[in-house]
């Protein structure tokens, strides 16, 4: 691990956040922090990714907060969190103003409906790609179905569902079960 100057680190976070369109941001982090700069070893990077996935919050924000903390402490974590959100937020605020300006137009409504439908299709494919990561204990399929059933069919709020099901899921996948 070689600790870069804070400005260099934040500059690279800003670059990644501004150019990682369409997901797959983890690969961008890996490329920049491990392969190109050597700021982190491969193992350190995957440890940070693991923690980011384990804890609540959007993973790609979490991991950059952990890396910022690793190098510079709480200040690094706070700055990295803000910088990683900056480019996308700027674009969305611009889009919000643009959409508000053309909302009366019926073509805008057609475009927005089409875009929303496409995004649903994309999410379906993301799930298909991620599904293999959930093959662990034999009961994992049941866990997926129970969550969907409780949230969508029974319409329970998410907090009690997750609090009830997650410990059971972790127990079923406890050390030594694989």
């Amino acid at each position, binding site marked *: 691990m070689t600790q870069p100057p804070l400005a260099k680190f934040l500059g690279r976070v800003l670059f*990644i956040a*501004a150019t*990682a*369109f369409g997901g797959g941001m983890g690969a961008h982090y890996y490329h920049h922090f491990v392969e190109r700069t050597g700021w982190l070893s491969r193992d350190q990077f995957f440890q940070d990714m693991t923690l980011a*996935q384990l*804890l*609540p*919050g*959007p*993973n*790609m*924000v*979490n991991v950059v907060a952990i890396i*910022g*903390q690793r190098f510079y402490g*709480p200040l690094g*974590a706070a700055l990295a*969190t803000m910088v990683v*959100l900056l*480019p996308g*937020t700027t*674009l*969305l605020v611009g889009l*919000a103003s643009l*959409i508000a300006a053309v909302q009366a137009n019926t073509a805008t409504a*057609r475009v*927005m*409906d*089409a875009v*929303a*439908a*496409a995004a*649903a299709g*994309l*999410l*379906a494919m*993301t*799930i298909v790609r*991620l599904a293999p*990561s*959930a093959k*662990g204990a034999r009961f*994992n399929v049941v*866990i*997926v179905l129970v*969550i*969907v059933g409780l*949230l*969508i069919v029974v319409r329970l709020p*998410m907090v009690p569902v*997750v609090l009830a*099901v*997650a410990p059971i*899921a*972790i*127990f079923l*996948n406890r*050390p*030594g*079960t694989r």
Partner: protein
Amino acid sequence: MIDLLELYLVYLKLGFLAIGGAAGVLPEMYREFVVVHGWMTDAEFAQAYAIGQLAPGPNMLMQMYVSYQLAGFGGLAVALLGFFAPTAAICAAFSRWWYGRAASPWTAAIIRGLAPVALGLMVSGLWTVGQAAIVDGKTAVIALGAAGLMLTRRVNPVIVIALAAVVGYLSPV
């Protein structure tokens, strides 16, 4: 006028519910924003999700779009401080403590155990977004087309969304 404190508390809860994949918060976000508080309609929710996908950077930037639409720059601050910052701070603090101790076999167990939970949440998220977005034959065809395009050739999702926008613009009313 939207109550910023109420929005903050909703975001605080959603941030802690984002486990595994951030799309997992969509069902609860839908429940809070559309059903409980009526801050947006079905269609606006589906559109906000789609627009959020256009932004570069981390997933769930849709929260910035939604909060800005609801309450301007005050809303942006609420989403940052409610949804993104608390969990990032916890991650940073936890990582410091975690790296000070030895690795446990339970780490892998927790990751394995949370994977199906996260997947279940994402499937529920798909259901939520899908039923708001797929309202007629045309939107169904576009959704299937987008999924098919992603399945057969690994194009950047941003391109798929842009294509859908063109199709929507050219399509008859």
